């Protein structure tokens, strides 16, 4: 047994889980899929005094698509979203294939991955790119936290110590939008050294009407490339313009260096992936052209 001792509760009612988080006095952790938390316990990087296992809570395992939103409950496994996406969302299908390995995705939850806030993780960048929100429940009730205000630092979010995330909501791109996703990692399923995700919509005149680009593994948090998005909006996308926007996006990043890659390498790869994902997104744009 490697984890340090802790108390354990597995409430069957959401309010009880929220109450338990409050009694933990900042030292309680939510256990859902456990695929990030349990390694941290095993390595004793985390020593919570109380684990609140939410796996018995009812009503948190739903995937709901309505009026352009995709809502995913806190107990939806990554594998369940992957299976859902197989027939409905090529973007999510491609993204999920890159999240660790099937045995991890069978247990790991989408919401857990989003709130764990590993900067090299795919889904947080997708949430940012798709202007999603995190639905949080705490002693003072429910609140929505937009993705662009959610990520603060590696493994650090706007979620309070007494709050638990009950769902995430992605804003689905319109059907005529195109998407691109790419990452570089040493091995399939490893955390990305760098990755990018892009969603682009074109107007009737063929010009870019809207572009969204986000990076992961390129800084302390997932990062949106706002300047590049603005540089593309309203312009006719030529290869030169894409290259320019991608280079500008990469120049604005502050990637970290570690044993896997230097900061300069990450910035260069980020630029290349930005260009590729934007080009892929444009190529997939449907509708009027």
């Amino acid at each position: 047994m490697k984890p340090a001792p802790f108390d354990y509760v597995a409430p069957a009612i959401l309010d009880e889980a929220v109450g338990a988080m409050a009694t933990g006095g900042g030292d309680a952790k939510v256990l859902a899929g456990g695929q990030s938390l349990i390694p941290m316990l095993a390595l004793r990087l985390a020593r919570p005094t109380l684990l609140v296992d939410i796996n018995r809570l009812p009503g948190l395992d739903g995937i709901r698509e309505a009026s352009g939103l995709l809502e995913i409950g806190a107990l939806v496994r990554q594998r369940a979203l992957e299976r859902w996406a197989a027939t409905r969302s090529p973007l999510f299908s491609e993204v999920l294939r890159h999240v660790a390995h099937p045995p991890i995705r069978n247990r790991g939850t989408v919401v857990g991955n989003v709130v764990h806030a590993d900067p090299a993780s795919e889904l947080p960048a997708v949430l940012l790119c798709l202007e999603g929100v995190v639905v949080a429940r705490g002693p003072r009730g429910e609140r929505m936290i937009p993705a662009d205000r959610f990520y603060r630092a590696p493994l650090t979010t706007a979620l309070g110590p007494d709050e638990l995330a009950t769902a995430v909501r992605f804003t689905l791109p319109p059907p005529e939008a195109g998407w691109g996703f790419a990452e570089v990692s040493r091995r399939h399923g490893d955390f990305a050294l760098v990755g990018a995700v892009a969603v682009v919509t074109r107007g009737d005149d063929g010009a870019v009407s809207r572009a969204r680009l986000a990076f992961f593994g390129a800084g302390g948090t997932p990062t949106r490339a706002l300047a590049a998005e603005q540089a593309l909006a309203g312009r006719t996308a030529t290869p030169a313009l894409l290259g320019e926007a991608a280079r500008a996006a990469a120049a604005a990043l502050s990637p970290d260096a570690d044993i896997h890659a230097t900061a300069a390498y990450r910035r260069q790869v980020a630029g290349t992936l930005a260009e590729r994902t934007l080009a892929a997104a444009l190529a997939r744009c449907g509708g009027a052209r």
Partner: protein
Amino acid sequence: MTRTIRVTVNGQEHERAVEVRATLADFLREDLDLTGTHVGCEHGVCGACTVLLDGEPVRACLMLAVQADGLRITTIEGVAPADGLHPIQEAFWAKHGLQCGYCTPGIIMSASAFLRERPSPSREEIREMLAGHLCRCTGYHFIVEAIEAAAQALAPPTPRPTSPRE
């Protein structure tokens, strides 16, 4: 802190009090003496401890034993028939898909679920699946071949084309 759990492992029901911080891998090995589930890294990287939870592969080191309460687990001990080996085990034997054997139980558990979902996988798909398992001996080539051979062994026999004379 302990809790009593009831789990079905390889078809047999067990009721035990477990320490809440014990992982499922600890429980299988220490409490049930099912030491075929190997633990390598104990933090989810190596895949050696992979077991089936309600038929789906999971890392036994990345879940607490208490979380398995009420669920059905299959370990490597539950794979082979009473006399002999499972076709995947046969294929690993025939194709030299193992050397020291430490990673083998986890790979066989993953492969059994994988081949159920993809009965005739490409080499690329097999390699993508194997990315979740570390093997330090074989260099993976023979494991890929073993899984290919297992897929063929498990495939339903194809009907022979009828000859035009018949």
